[in-house]
């Protein structure tokens, strides 16, 4: 076999774009962290100097003390919300993905169901939540359904776009190779939808927590949402603040998890 020898002209520009220098990376972390610390310090000072009552606005130190002191209570309310958020995330996104696949394969299904999906999406989640609590009762199911519902629409829209993102040229390639419909789906449409899917999943990772908490507001004995309502009505501001921080910590955790998985899966 004759190898066609070439001067390897193009190899010069390698792809290992050098990592940012250590000091650059350090500054990237240090600036936002420093800003946050400064804001917290201002908050602490402000509350102390103006002698704001704790039940109106607690100082960060009060919140931290409450977080430490009421840790078992916070955790007892954290797990149900985590469970509802993750289950809702899985259910809502899975439903959206499957329906998107159905839409892409049949224009009829899309014509029949897309307007309904749009309609459901236009109902504010706060308005639909009581209805779902009436239907599913005060247990976890209603919260899971609300979390699922809030995830559903962005994923549906993005997934449909992703599955249709295959270039006409790629489809011509598929035809020249006489690929079947299922081969086109598995080897071309599905992989090319992944970047779109992940940008939707990142939205869903934070909104599913909102869904679960809104559900808990309407009616629940346990969960971060219930604790928010409880501590508000009992004027336990430090506990309220601690709960809010824990909720946003949960969102950040889910978002980070999805982002890490995205980095591993979508390498192109």
């Amino acid at each position, binding site marked *: 076999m004759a190898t066609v020898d070439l001067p390897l002209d193009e190899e010069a520009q390698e792809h290992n774009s050098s990592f940012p220098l250590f000091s650059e990376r350090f500054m990237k972390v240090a600036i936002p962290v420093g800003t946050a610390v400064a804001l917290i310090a201002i908050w602490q000072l402000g509350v102390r100097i103006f002698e704001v009552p704790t039940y109106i606005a607690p100082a960060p130190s009060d919140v931290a003390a409450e977080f430490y002191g009421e840790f078992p209570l916070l955790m007892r309310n954290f797990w149900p919300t985590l469970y509802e958020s993750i289950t809702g995330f899985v259910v809502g996104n899975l439903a959206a993905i499957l329906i998107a696949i159905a839409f892409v394969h049949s224009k009829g299904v899309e014509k029949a169901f897309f307007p309904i999906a749009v309609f459901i999406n236009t109902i504010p989640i706060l308005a639909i939540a009581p209805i779902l609590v009436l239907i599913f009762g005060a247990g976890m199911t209603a919260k899971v359904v609300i979390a699922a519902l809030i995830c559903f629409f962005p994923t549906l829209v993005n997934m449909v776009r992703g599955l249709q993102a295959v270039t006409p040229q790629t489809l011509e390639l598929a035809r020249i190779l006489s690929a079947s419909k299922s*081969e086109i789906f598995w080897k*071309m449409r599905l992989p090319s939808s992944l970047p779109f899917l992940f940008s939707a999943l990142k939205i869903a990772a934070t909104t599913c927590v909102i869904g679960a908490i809104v559900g808990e507001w309407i009616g629940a004995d346990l969960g971060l949402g219930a604790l928010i309502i409880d501590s508000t009505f009992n004027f336990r501001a430090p506990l309220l603040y601690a709960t809010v921080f824990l909720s946003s910590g949960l969102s950040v955790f889910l978002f980070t998890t999805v982002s890490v998985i995205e980095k591993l899966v979508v390498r192109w």
Partner: protein
Amino acid sequence: MAALQTPAAESDFAAASLQGASVRFGELTALSNITLDIPVGEFWTILGPSGCGKSTMLRLVSDLIPAAAGSAVIFGKSTEEARLAREIAFVFQDATLLPWRTALSNVELPLEIGRKRGVTIPAGDRTPMELLEMVGLKGRENALPHELSGGMRQRVAIARALVCQPKLLLMDEPFGALDEMKRDLLNMQLLEIWRETGTTILFVTHSISEAVFLGQKVLMLQAHPGRIKQIVDIDLPSPREIKIRETPRFNKYCSELRALLEEC
């Protein structure tokens, strides 16, 4: 003993034979009444003004679009049969690689399509790895397309096109987006691949000198409706070297074709 009727040998057929073939897009006649025979093993280049139907012609031959009238026959078979038998390969202007697959697994794609359905896939003499080596990408087989330059991506596309050992290789401005140096390099490589594999090549280009340098014949198309203007024999010695482009003969062909193109 009665002589047995032997089936017609493959070489009795042209690689591609168009008989009064036309293609229409609604009202527009993109190709009108094309009749030509491309003998097996020849290298033809196609020139013509933009929109004259060059791509359409390749897409007709590769069964991407049907003929509105007339016929297109590939090695004695319908274009569909030839496509199903993987006798035709296509290299597009942009490499059309799957961005999530490495260079090697892009080249392997044609071997995967249809395998689970039990389709017999004509595997070539060369493995995907050897093909990558042949196009000068040894050591880059695990690179993803976005990590490769335009020229390298196009070479992966060529390796992919060769993996099923096609008898007819269609190329639609494959080097159009490359700079002159890379284009020369890939032109030389392509000629070498052609000599080695003996495949028939139909190559669309906008560059007159590329058409003359590569082609044994230059098919000149003209527009409105797309039809054959002239088929010009390029009688230059083979194997061709880059230097040949400085010879008076080469330049004579170029100016002849330029004059023809201006008439279109």
